[in-house]
């Protein structure tokens, strides 16, 4: 049913991102790169993602044990995973949050499930970055890029949630009260992991798994370690592949650790080596970034629902008159359009908050050049960068809270809550406008309705994110206020 919009400029860069157009005056090179990435991604989604969106969803409904391998192949062929790798490490990312966010919206408007294919690895790379282990980050980033250029596939997920601890594991203040089942123990030459992690995005696609697990369950913060586990590690196995309501292309996996040995060099963060726990800065850093991403993702879902409803209104009549020219339909459409802009404005502000906290507008142009990469990768620079001392110093630095980092916390939760609530609302509204036509799989909007719900749940439920906003924005200012 769905066809191209008559006017693709309805969501053009200039009509969608006034703040970026303004920024173009002072940061022309940066915004030029963002524009280029935006236009390339739009073409990619139309040409390669749209044809697979509904057929993949249907195939995975027919066989819930299958994986969206065709989508994964498309992602690899078109180097979508290299976009999570900065150019100075050989990837295609420019090191800013702008392009990934607006591309998330664009992609989700076409197929949120395709983001599910990408996002497990994105989360893994962001988490690996926040561990500050540059040795493993550099290595894995290069392998990811090589994997997309014909080498073996190197993708990573990030495992936090446990079967009995979902929300509790997403909030530092609650972790000490979480009912954990996972634990690591030290052994000669490394550590052994035991337990299960669940709902892990991209687990069945990943070659490696970034695991957050304490050495002592009674002190999950102070003894928190981070481990990198290859899929072929002895004692590791993939458990259940969840049968989700929507976002079916992105696998949600159970990871099982049965006395799984991790050699010392794959212990990404060993709490013994650091003066303070990595857990709080890691969780705040990762979720601070990924919740903005979810906000953009959910904005795209709301926009996709609007676009389908608009197309329907242009091609269907009620009492002899096209819906697009009837006020009740116009009202429904403009309400949905308003929701898209509300959600987008929120995630853009959160994105700027994220950039403020991470030092500005991304890596300078020269960091992508060949000479800089050669220098960056030279032995003395690499040796210094990969030293335990530098790792310790970076972890210590991330543990310091700034006002900018505090702002990221409430802004990111705000983007996630607003985007996902409005995305869900738009899916409701689109189906209500389309009636019976809206519940047919072929129309596409019932899929978005199923897809949208996940964004209200993962990366901490929207209820937890509301508390998180209060904790980081109000509690520091209102002495009598307690949240957790």
């Amino acid at each position, binding site marked *: 049913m769905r066809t191209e919009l008559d006017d693709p400029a309805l969501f053009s860069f200039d009509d969608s991102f006034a703040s970026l157009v303004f920024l173009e005056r002072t940061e022309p090179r940066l915004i030029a790169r963002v524009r280029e990435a935006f236009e390339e991604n739009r073409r990619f989604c139309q040409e390669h993602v749209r044809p697979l969106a509904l057929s993949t969803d249907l195939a995975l409904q027919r066989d819930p044990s299958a994986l969206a391998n065709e989508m994964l192949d498309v992602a690899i062929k078109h180097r979508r995973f290299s976009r999570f790798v900065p150019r100075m490490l050989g990837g295609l990312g420019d090191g800013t949050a702008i392009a990934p966010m607006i591309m998330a919206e664009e992609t989700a408007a076409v197929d949120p499930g395709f983001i599910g294919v990408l996002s497990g690895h994105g989360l893994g790379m962001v988490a690996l970055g926040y561990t500050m282990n540059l040795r493993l980050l550099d290595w894995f980033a290069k392998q990811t890029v090589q994997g997309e250029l014909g080498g073996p596939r190197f993708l990573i997920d990030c495992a936090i949630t446990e079967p009995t601890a979902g929300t509790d594991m997403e909030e530092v203040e609650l972790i000490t009260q979480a009912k954990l089942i996972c634990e690591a123990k030290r052994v000669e030459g490394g550590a052994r992991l035991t337990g299960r992690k669940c709902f892990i995005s991209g687990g069945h696609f990943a070659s490696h798994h970034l695991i957050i697990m304490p050495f002592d369950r009674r002190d999950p913060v102070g003894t928190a370690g981070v481990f990198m586990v290859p899929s072929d590690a002895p004692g590791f196995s993939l458990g259940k592949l969840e049968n989700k309501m929507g976002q079916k292309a992105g696998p949600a996996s159970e990871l099982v650790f049965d006395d799984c040995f991790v050699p010392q060099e794959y212990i990404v963060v060993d709490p013994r080596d650091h003066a303070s726990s990595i857990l709080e800065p890691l969780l705040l850093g990762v979720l601070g970034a990924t919740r903005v991403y979810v906000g953009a993702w959910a904005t795209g879902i709301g926009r996709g629902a609007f676009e389908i409803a608009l197309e329907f209104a242009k091609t269907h009549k009620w009492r002899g008159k096209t819906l697009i020219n009837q006020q009740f339909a116009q009202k429904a459409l403009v309400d949905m359009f308003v929701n898209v802009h509300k959600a987008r404005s929120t995630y853009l502000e959160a994105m700027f908050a994220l950039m403020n906290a991470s030092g500005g507008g991304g890596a300078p142009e020269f960091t992508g050049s060949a000479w800089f990469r050669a220098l960056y990768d030279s032995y003395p620079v690499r040796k210094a960068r990969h030293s335990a001392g530098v790792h310790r110093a970076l972890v210590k630095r991330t543990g310091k809270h700034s006002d900018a980092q505090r702002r990221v916390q409430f802004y990111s939760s705000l983007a996630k809550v607003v985007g996902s609530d409005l995305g869900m609302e738009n899916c409701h509204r689109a189906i209500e406008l389309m009636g019976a036509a809206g*519940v047919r799989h072929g129309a596409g909007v019932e899929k978005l309705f199923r897809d949208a719900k996940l964004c209200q749940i993962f990366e901490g439920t929207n209820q937890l994110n509301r508390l998180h906003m209060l904790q980081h924005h109000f509690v520091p200012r209102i002495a009598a206020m307690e949240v957790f």
Partner: protein
Amino acid sequence: MALGEQDRQAVEQLARRFAQDALAAVEREDDRYPFAPWNRAAWRTAAELGLPGLALPESVGGSEQGLLTLARALEIVARAEAGHATVLLTQALARATVVALGPQSSAARWATLRSDAQESLLAYPLYEDPEELGDGVRARRDGAGFVLDGQLQQLSCLPIAQAVLVPALLVDSGEQAFFILPTNTAGVSVSEPIVTLGLRACPLADLTLANVRVEAAGRLGGADAAAAYARTAESYRPALVAVALGVLSASYDLAFAYACERKQSKRNIVLHHMVQEMLAGMASTLDLGALTLERACQLAEQGGGSGTELLSFQEVLCTLITRVSTDGVQVLGGNGYMHDYGQEKHMRDAKQLQTVLGSPTTRRLRILERRLARAQA
């Protein structure tokens, strides 16, 4: 014949038994249709128990126990499996429509619930607005009979039906006419089953008619058929709402039990106000439904009240139910999103029920149109 509360309770007991024996174990498998076979055995059992005939006259094998009895039975069945409840609703409404339109000979042939129930399923345009049937199918007179051409979308039970009730526009007079024809009639083609958001145990398909010849006896009703058709559908809105209430009831039970069991911050999540707020929204919607369902059924049996109550009843409750059933998933968090827990199905079923008997958006408009008409009169 009106039944007392005791008799109604006996019927409810029957519906509970059906839900437990025939549906409870297969609920999630039946949700896989059309990727799994349709559960014909469940329909056969329901028919043997007389569930589709609860509100139908004895002349067609019904038990004349009234709309409230049917509604309560549907609510109970929907708690177990809303798709099967929708099959029962479709069969009851299709037969009631055939009876209302007449003639008696057609009612006897098509509406009668027979012992070989599996051979007498009817397809009905359950998703169409009964007052705005459109001209998807056009009929022209041809001697003593008619020739039908056109398409109808998303007919309830069509993939499993032996006959289909077809609204058509008579091209010579411009009036709405209704026909009933066996699905194996020459020129009738039925699409592959349609995959939809929810209610998957109630199969749907599109219908295409190409030069289909129907004898005069295949026409239902006369000049006032459109009004009779709409009146019948209108009177079944409370039964439809009952299905939605059954879905919400199941969703609430799951969410409440989970919230009492699941701990967060070392406290059962039912003690968290944000969870309480969601559960309260679900509970109050259920209470509203319980308070109003009986009155709505009475109004339906008395001819629909002043004209807007039944529409409003469906509109308000079905819209509320779609919103709070998404909260039912939210209470379970990630588990709610997974098929294994059964909660996501309730959210999908509830949303699809909102689109039955016309789109919600135009339903809202009609409520005011009727009130305007009344004010002007």
